[in-house]
């Protein structure tokens, strides 16, 4: 492959980097220009849209069978090139996923950021860079690249969490996030070093070959190495027991950032986890990680839901609910089933669930942002009588909450159907039962919001006039949540095609 073709494969990342730099530059040039500063979010969204276009351009080049097309360090310099990233179905899926997150969050952040902080350009630039790191992480096929991109994502997330410098809760959340994150990434790096020590390579596929080849004498190192890697990635996903940072960080962070954090880093964590386990350690599935993941999934679902029951702040409630949702998604990874035997391979369930969760959660947060913009806070009591104050927001929120519970005809139902289906297919009945019981438990706290919206009495019944752009974002999300469920076939096919290569490895 010549150098130009090789750079072409990196087009989405290059476009996104350039977009972030342009937003930084424009912010500097327009520093004192309020009127022009209002255009910054639009430039960020434009950057995301161009990245989506670039992703569509590289889509046909994605590897479909055998080894994925790879970006390599040292390409074009002569000598050995070391593969660092893959362009396969999974990478394309997460590129599109990231772009959607960036567009939705970018559109819904405008008014909130305008109100809360004078520093605007950095916010959008950092958000684009966080998106870039998700793209890099989900495509990485080398332990070094995985670590660097996850660290990149963590650092941008810390800054975004502590973005409201004058708000002590924002700073507190960022500090907690940072301290947990520093510990988790150190542990993960140590786990990676054990993997490298045992196999002598950092390339995921080469690790699997080395482990299968019999040249590795220290197989007992694999379990601790895997658990340590899981600690670092579990921190990103906010799996129990690595979740303690998330409620504080979610509550303290600016609400658009909370929306981003609850979807973006989770997706990156799942992408890396799936790639790491399936590419590097497929041989240890039955012995080690299927059981570990199933255990973590059960604890995560149960604890997330039980603690969510007691929350009165909507951001905190959604934080715990997102912990529980991550537990459901993890079922997909724990209960992998061979593709030949069923339509639910677990992996496609995971992606489908993530896709449904993207629109559901970002939509719910968009409603929270719209209400917070008017009332100044985000407690469940602020939702009282919403049906009279803003029927549109109330009905949209109802759709998102139903989707979070998993009631048809919403996208959340489809996601749950696929992951629970996978659990049943691979005879992990306990996992499916715990998941279903938890879904029932979760109805209680989602219903608390619903009953406030429809039957609660607000102190002032003044209508909440959401900005047109917020209405648009909420509306699109609500339509997508319904569309994924009612017109499911293309989305199921997208999820199934995206995992084809990974699923073939076991």
């Amino acid at each position, binding site marked *: 492959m010549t150098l130009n073709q090789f750079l072409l494969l990196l087009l989405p990342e290059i476009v996104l980097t350039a977009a972030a*730099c342009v937003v930084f*530059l424009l912010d*500097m040039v327009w520093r004192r220009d309020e009127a022009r500063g209002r255009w910054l979010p639009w430039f960020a969204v434009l950057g995301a849209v161009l990245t989506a276009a670039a992703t569509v351009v590289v889509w046909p080049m994605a590897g479909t069978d055998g080894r994925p097309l790879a970006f390599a360090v040292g390409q074009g*310099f002569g000598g050995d090139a070391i593969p660092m990233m893959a362009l396969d179905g999974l990478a394309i899926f997460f590129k599109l996923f990231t772009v959607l997150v960036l567009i939705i969050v970018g559109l819904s952040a405008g008014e909130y950021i305008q109100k809360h902080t004078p520093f605007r350009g950095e916010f959008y630039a950092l958000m684009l860079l966080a998106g870039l790191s998700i793209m890099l992480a989900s495509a990485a096929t080398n332990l070094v690249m995985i670590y660097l991109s996850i660290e990149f994502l963590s650092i941008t997330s810390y800054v975004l969490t502590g973005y409201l410098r004058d708000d002590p809760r924002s700073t507190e959340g960022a500090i907690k996030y940072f301290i947990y994150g520093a510990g988790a990434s150190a542990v993960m790096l140590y786990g990676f070093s054990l993997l490298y020590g045992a196999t002598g390579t950092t390339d995921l596929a080469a690790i699997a070959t080395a482990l299968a080849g019999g040249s590795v*004498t220290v197989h007992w190192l694999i379990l601790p190495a895997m658990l340590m890697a899981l600690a670092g990635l579990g921190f990103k996903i906010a799996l129990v027991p690595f979740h303690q940072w998330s409620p504080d960080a979610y509550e303290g962070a600016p609400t658009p950032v909370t929306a981003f954090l609850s979807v973006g880093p989770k997706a990156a964590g799942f992408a890396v986890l799936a790639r790491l386990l399936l590419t590097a350690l497929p041989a240890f599935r039955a012995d080690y990680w299927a059981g570990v993941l199933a255990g973590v999934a059960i604890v995560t679902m149960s604890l997330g839901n039980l603690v969510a029951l007691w929350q009165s702040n909507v951001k905190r409630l959604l934080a715990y609910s997102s912990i529980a949702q991550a537990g459901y998604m993890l079922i997909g990874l724990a209960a992998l089933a061979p593709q030949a035997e069923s339509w639910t391979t677990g992996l496609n369930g995971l992606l489908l669930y993530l896709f449904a969760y993207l629109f559901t959660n970002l939509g719910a947060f968009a409603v929270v942002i719209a209400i917070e913009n008017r009332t100044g806070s985000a407690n469940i009591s602020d939702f009282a009588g919403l049906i009279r104050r803003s029927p549109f927001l109330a009905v949209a929120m109802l759709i998102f909450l139903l989707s979070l519970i998993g009631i048809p005809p919403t996208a959340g139902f489809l996601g749950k159907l696929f992951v629970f289906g996978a659990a049943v297919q691979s005879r992990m009945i306990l996992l499916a039962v715990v998941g279903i019981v938890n879904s029932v438990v979760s109805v209680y706290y989602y219903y608390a919001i619903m009953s406030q919206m429809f039957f609660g009495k607000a102190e002032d019944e003044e209508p909440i006039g959401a900005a047109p752009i917020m209405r648009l974002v909420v509306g699109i999300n609500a339509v997508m949540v319904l569309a994924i469920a009612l017109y499911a076939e293309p989305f199921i096919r997208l999820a199934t095609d995206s995992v084809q290569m990974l699923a073939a490895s076991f």
Partner: protein
Amino acid sequence: MLSDFTFVGILVLIAVLLPVVGLGLSWLIRPKKPNPVKQSTYECGIETIGDTWVQFRAQYYIYALVFVVFDIEAVFLLPWAVAYDQLPLYALTEAVIFVLILALALVYAWRKGALRWS
């Protein structure tokens, strides 16, 4: 495999024993005759002025951060410069883009007034 780790073990053992034995032994056999000059803080031979626990201004971290921009630049440009005559044009472009991105960071810090001491 095991013998390799034995060497590491021996190294760890020596590394721990050396300072412990050295310091412990000298503590045991040294004469103890303190006087004010001996107990004063040694910095550079000149008498210390003021308290040892001076507070540094936290704003220094911004200078440290800006310094990192140049630091990283030097770290990556050195190997590039050493191999310069064997590299294709592509490598030159790459280095220019790299420097431009770092320059953006510096300009950003500059515009934000990070280089002004207030």
